[in-house]
């Protein structure tokens, strides 16, 4: 079992990791063909990953209901929502799953009148929490914090049309902040992240990093 749990995944990671690197650096048709083949496999695995994610989520919530953990009522809501949506989807307005998905009916009703408003509500609630957080934490405690504060206020007003009404210079200053200091910092961050990704990928390929294998 240790072979299946440890050595085999490490071997797969090494072989496919090396192939991935070679594809990027070996300009040969065979590599391009292999790339095409692997892309197909990857898409297939991604579809299975969706199923795996669903299984993992449902299992976790089932355990919470079983153990009567605090907030297990939310897990019941999740399971109920899943079962109703799943059954309605399978039923497909009487055409079942072998026909094209019905363009109207219960599944669309759930999407339009439950999922869409719930999603939009979650996002819009952010405005309230951001306002509260900004009031509490945005303080000019130091010189650099004051600089950040001034930049944030300029961008906040300069990005919306009312900034243009206050002064035409505000949107210009806001654009300058976004295009010059912001872009410079972002570029530095992206380069750092990219180098980090390369380092982590090499650690995984050569089996130094094994956290993805999970526990015993």
């Amino acid at each position, binding site marked *: 079992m240790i072979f299946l749990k440890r050595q085999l995944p490490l071997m797969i990671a090494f072989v496919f990791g090396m192939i991935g690197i070679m594809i990027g650096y070996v300009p040969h048709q065979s590599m391009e063909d292999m790339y095409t083949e692997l892309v197909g496999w990857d*898409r297939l695995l991604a579809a299975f990953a969706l199923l795996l994610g669903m299984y993992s989520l449902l299992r976790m919530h089932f355990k919470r209901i079983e153990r009567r953990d605090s907030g297990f009522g939310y897990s019941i809501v999740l399971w109920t929502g899943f079962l109703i949506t799943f059954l309605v989807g399978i039923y497909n307005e009487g055409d079942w799953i072998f026909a094209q998905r019905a363009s109207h009916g219960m599944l669309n009703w759930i999407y339009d009148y439950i999922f869409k408003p719930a*999603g939009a509500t979650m*996002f819009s609630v952010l405005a*309230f929490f*951001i*306002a*509260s957080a900004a*009031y*509490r934490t945005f303080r000019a405690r130091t010189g650099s914090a004051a600089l950040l504060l001034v930049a944030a206020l300029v961008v906040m007003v300069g990005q919306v049309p009312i900034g243009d009404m206050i002064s035409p210079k505000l949107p210009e200053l806001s654009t300058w902040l*976004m295009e010059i200091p912001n872009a410079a910092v972002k570029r530095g961050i992206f380069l750092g992240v990219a180098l980090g990704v390369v380092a982590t990928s090499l650690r995984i390929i050569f089996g130094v990093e094994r956290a993805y294998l999970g526990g015993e």
Partner: protein
Amino acid sequence: MKRQTLNRLLDLDRRWIFLFVLVAAIFARLVDFDLPSRPKRIVKDVYDQIELLHESGEVLLLSMDYDPAGKPELEPMSRAVLRHAFMRDVKVVGMTHNPHGQNLGQTVLEETAAEFGSKYGEDYVYLGYKAGFATLVINMGQDFYDAFPLDFKGVDLKSYPITKDIGSLSDFGYVFSVASTAAWEVWMVFGSEKYRFKYGVGATGVMAPDVYPFLQTGQIKGLLGGLVGAAEYETLIDRPDRAAVGMRPQSAIHVLLVLLVLFGNVIFFLERRARRSGRA
């Protein structure tokens, strides 16, 4: 002002702030006032790309990579870009990388097409959602028909005049991703960089700053950032709609935020001075 009062103001119950935000939003929504929207250069770049498609007759690929949570901010962008495309007789292929976004993309395409009498299959096609994300983009670049042999209705893409000659992503005149996730990055890293097509982004206000470095390098041609970007695009096509209306509450809340932050800082300094003088 007493230190006790200052401390109470510093620890203002957040429900008061929630109430201020609510009142500002409702006030700005109910009271009608004009806010002029001056389109930025990066928004005009998107507009120009669609105009170029009109001249060249090439197809626009619009990827609506958002879910219902991102809809209020991002759908106005999709709508504005689609209106411009249909207005200028530009053919559109729509899709999404978001499994929860399939209906959203379909609805906005159908509604906008209906406004201009555009017909499915002749003026636009919808591919829907397919799993894969980065690998789907690569697959579309290698062989478009292999990645999407059928549209969301299950009809062969070769049977539509718009898609029958598209063999790769590079056959599109412009690809525009309206994204609330890292999809915009995926389109660039695995798509436009490898298959060399013109690419633009519509992103949420929070994500837009991440896009700026790639605008400077020319890897991204045009950006609509947040609802403001959509409002500016609506101004460009002379069709003010939801984004333009949304500018009123958004402006009011931004001003409120600035006032709250300034007020918080004034109280903070007064309290600090009171604390220091109390200690002396």
